[in-house]
C-alpha cells in the first residue's frame, strides 16, 4: 500500500505538470490567435482538414432530409411554388430592363465624371455547412475555403442583400461573421440622401444599430440602407436593410436608429461570395472600417 501511495503521489505530481504545460500551450495559442489571426492560419488549415469529415457527416442527415423533402414534395406545393417563382421572375425581368437602362446611364455619367466603373462583380455560390452553436455569436461555416480562392474579409451576399464577411479561411471551409454579430461594423449609406454612417451588429439576427446619427440627421423609417463601399471590404451599392425605428432624443446628441437587415440572415442555405472586385482586394481589408473582432 505505501508503494501504491507514493506511486499515486508521483503520478499526481506528474498530472499537475502536464496540466500546467497544456494550459500554458492553450493560453499561448489564444494570445497568438487574438493578437494576429494569421499567426496560426497554417495550423488551423491543417487541423481543419481532420475535423472536416465530421462537419460534413453532421450535415449529411440534414442534407438527406432536405433532399427527401424535395423529392416527395406534394405536387400542389410544387405547382404553387412554380407559379410564385414565375410571377417573381416576371417582376424581376421588368425591373431588370429598367436596371439595364439605369446601368447604361450610370456608366455614361461615370465616364463623364471620369471615375472608376464597376458594372458587375464575379460571384461564387457557397453553401452554409454549420451555424455557430453559441447563441451569442452570429457566425456560420461555409463549404468554400482557401482552395476555392476565398480570402479573409471577403464580402458575403444573398439574394436580398449583404450577409456578412469571411473571418477565418481554412483549406476547405471558412467561417463568416454575420453583419448582425455584435462585433461587426458595416459602413453604409442612406440610399435616399446618401448620408454615410456605420451599422453595428447587435447580436440579434433581425436588428442593426446605427448609433452615429445625430438628432438632426435626415433619416426616416423605411429608408433603405446600402453599402457605401468605404472601408474597402464590401462592394458599394448592395442593400443592407431598412430603417425600422428612429427615435430622436432631445437630451442626447445622437438619435436612436435601428434597422432590419434585408438579407435572410437566419434563413436560406446558399450565400454568394463576391470575388475580387479590383477595387476591394485582400490588401484593402486590413485597414478597413468594417473590422471584425473575435
Amino acid at each position: 500500500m505505501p508503494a501504491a501511495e507514493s506511486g499515486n503521489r508521483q503520478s499526481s505530481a506528474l498530472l499537475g505538470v502536464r496540466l500546467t504545460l497544456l494550459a500554458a500551450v492553450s493560453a499561448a495559442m489564444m494570445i497568438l490567435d487574438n493578437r494576429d489571426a494569421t499567426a496560426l492560419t497554417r495550423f488551423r488549415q491543417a487541423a481543419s482538414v481532420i475535423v472536416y469529415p465530421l462537419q460534413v457527416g453532421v450535415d449529411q442527415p440534414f442534407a438527406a432530409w432536405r433532399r427527401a423533402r424535395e423529392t416527395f414534395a406534394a405536387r400542389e406545393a410544387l405547382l404553387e411554388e412554380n407559379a410564385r417563382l414565375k410571377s417573381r421572375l416576371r417582376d424581376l425581368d421588368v425591373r431588370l430592363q429598367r436596371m439595364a437602362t439605369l446601368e447604361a446611364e450610370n456608366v455614361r455619367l461615370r465616364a463623364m465624371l471620369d471615375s472608376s466603373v464597376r458594372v458587375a462583380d464575379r460571384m461564387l455560390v457557397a453553401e452554409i455547412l454549420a451555424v455557430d452553436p453559441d447563441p451569442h455569436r452570429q457566425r456560420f461555416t461555409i463549404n468554400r475555403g482557401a482552395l476555392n480562392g476565398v480570402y479573409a474579409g471577403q464580402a458575403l451576399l444573398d439574394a436580398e442583400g449583404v450577409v456578412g464577411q469571411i473571418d477565418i479561411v481554412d483549406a476547405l471551409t471558412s467561417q463568416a461573421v454575420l453583419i448582425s454579430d455584435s462585433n461587426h461594423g458595416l459602413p453604409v449609406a442612406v440610399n435616399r440622401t446618401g448620408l454615410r454612417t456605420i451599422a453595428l451588429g447587435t447580436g440579434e439576427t433581425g436588428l442593426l444599430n446605427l448609433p452615429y446619427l445625430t438628432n438632426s440627421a435626415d433619416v426616416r423609417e423605411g429608408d433603405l440602407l446600402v453599402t457605401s463601399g468605404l472601408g474597402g471590404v464590401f462592394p458599394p451599392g448592395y442593400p443592407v436593410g431598412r430603417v425600422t425605428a428612429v427615435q430622436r432624443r432631445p437630451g442626447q446628441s445622437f438619435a436612436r436608429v435601428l434597422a432590419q437587415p434585408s438579407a435572410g440572415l437566419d434563413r436560406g442555405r446558399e450565400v454568394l461570395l463576391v470575388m475580387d472586385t479590383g477595387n476591394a482586394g485582400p490588401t484593402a481589408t486590413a485597414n478597413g472600417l468594417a473590422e471584425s473582432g473575435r
Partner: protein
Amino acid sequence: MIGRVRPMLLPMTMLVLALALSIVPLGDRVAPYRPDWVPLALIYWAIARPRHFGLLCAFAMGLALDLLTGSLLGRHALALLPVVYLALRLHLRIRVALSWQVAVTVVLLLALYHFLLFWIDGVGQRAPGAIAWAPLLTSALLWPVVMVTLGGFGPDRMRESQ
C-alpha cells in the same frame, strides 16, 4: 496493447459522437439548452479509464471544438483542462461515492467549465444572463442517463494494473 484496442472503440466513438452532437444545428429556441456533450463525455471517461483518457485527450478535444465552432484557438481546450484534471485527481473518490454525490460533483465540474469559458470571453464584454447556464441544467439531467446506459464506471483499471 493489442487487447486494448477493442475496449477503446466505445470511448472513441462516444467522444466523436459528442463532438458531432455539439455542432448539430438546433432551432433558436432549443440551442441555448444544448447539453455540454464534450465535457460530459470527457468527465465520464476520465473517471472510468483514467489511464487512457487524460489531459492530452482533453486538450485535443478542446482544440477540435475550437476548430468546429470557429472560436479562439485554445478557448475550449483551456476550459476543459482544469475540469478533466479535477476529474482525474478525484476519480478514486468519485468511484466510491453515492450516485447522487457523483451527479453533484459532475454538475460542479461543468459549472467550473462554464465559468472558465465566461472568464476567457471576458464577462464584462457581454453579460451572459441566466440563459447561459441552461446547458448546465440539461447536462445534469443527462448525466443519470449516461450512467445508466453505460452501467456505472466499470472495473477500476488503475487499481487492477498496480
